[in-house]
């Protein structure tokens, strides 16, 4: 893309903006030189698209081209992606509120909990949530998983986590199997859930109170097969 391509670039962009295409992916595969006027055009175009709440990103850069562009400071302006598919995934995340989902079936052994809570907390962090939110999510998962293990059927020896994350919130369901919980016992569990009482002398029993404070929404469902805790945690920043 030398100086002669500037006019063609400018025209192409003008047409796209007129047609209402505000999200542009520039595929630079096979391009080994971009002149600084051409970079200038790309920057100008990106600015116009951002004003229209769109964006312009670059894909398919060779290592060599990437180095050259970085020398011109382009890496501070443009996002580089490896391929178009990654751009689209990111776009859907940002603009279509597409949630990332994960389901886990975990052995009911407390020894697995640290790895699980760190896994989900790093997913949250990697998706751009701040450290404080990631830490709170880690705490919520830890407490609910430990409760699920402690109060689940001992014969079953596993519990389930459904995890869903979009740009604005994390939704979490932790389910264990508690067959044979009769209705009066279920009522008791529900009451304890609604009003967790903390005994100052006890080492345990503070988890649910903590989850309650850290969650935006918290709900308990008991059916014939098991107990499910639903949590919504809204992103803070």
């Amino acid at each position: 893309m030398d100086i002669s391509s500037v006019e063609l670039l400018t025209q192409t962009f003008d047409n796209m903006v007129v047609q209402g295409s505000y999200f542009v992916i520039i595929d630079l595969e096979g391009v080994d030189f971009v002149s600084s006027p051409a970079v200038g055009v790309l920057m100008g175009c990106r600015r116009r698209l951002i004003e229209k709440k769109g964006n312009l990103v670059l894909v398919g850069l060779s290592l060599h081209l990437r180095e050259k562009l970085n020398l011109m400071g382009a890496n501070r302006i443009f996002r580089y992606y490896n391929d178009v598919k990654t751009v689209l995934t990111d776009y859907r995340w940002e603009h279509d509120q597409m949630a990332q989902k994960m389901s886990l079936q975990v052995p009911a052994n407390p020894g697995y909990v640290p790895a699980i809570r760190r896994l989900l907390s790093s997913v949250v962090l990697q998706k751009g949530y701040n450290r404080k939110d990631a830490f709170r999510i880690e705490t919520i998962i830890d407490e609910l998983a430990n409760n699920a293990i402690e109060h689940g059927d001992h014969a079953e020896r596993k519990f389930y986590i459904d995890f869903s994350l979009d740009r604005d919130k994390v939704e979490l369901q932790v389910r264990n199997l508690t067959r044979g919980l009769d209705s009066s016992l279920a009522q008791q569990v529900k009451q304890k859930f609604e009003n967790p009482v903390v005994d100052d002398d006890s080492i345990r029993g503070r988890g649910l109170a903590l989850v309650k404070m850290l969650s935006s929404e918290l709900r308990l469902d008991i059916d014939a097969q098991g107990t499910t805790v639903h949590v919504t945690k809204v992103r803070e920043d």
Partner: protein
Amino acid sequence: MESKQIKLEVKTVEGRADTRIVEFDGDLDSTNVESTLDKINSVYGEGVVNIIADFSKLRYVNSTGLGILLHISKTAKTNKWNFKIAKVNDNVFEIIEIIGAHTLLDIYDDIGDALNSLN
């Protein structure tokens, strides 16, 4: 599956044979509260009556971990010993605060302040 998640290092304090600094490194959670309690209990005694828990490397604490800290603190008070905590990170402090444990635990900004508070 045995996984400790935490390392406790006991350090002596110059000029104070009755005091130890215990550095907590890692995560204090349901997998290691018992071993942590055993370790702390083994530090008290034989003339050691003060423990300062250095939390600068404590990344994480859960409700059971806090339960054990409250238990240690209470036992210390009953025996007229000291259990003081210093250098708590923001995330851990938030958990302590939500549980309401900040009024029950002796917490200091740094080790020096905790040491100076000993008689």
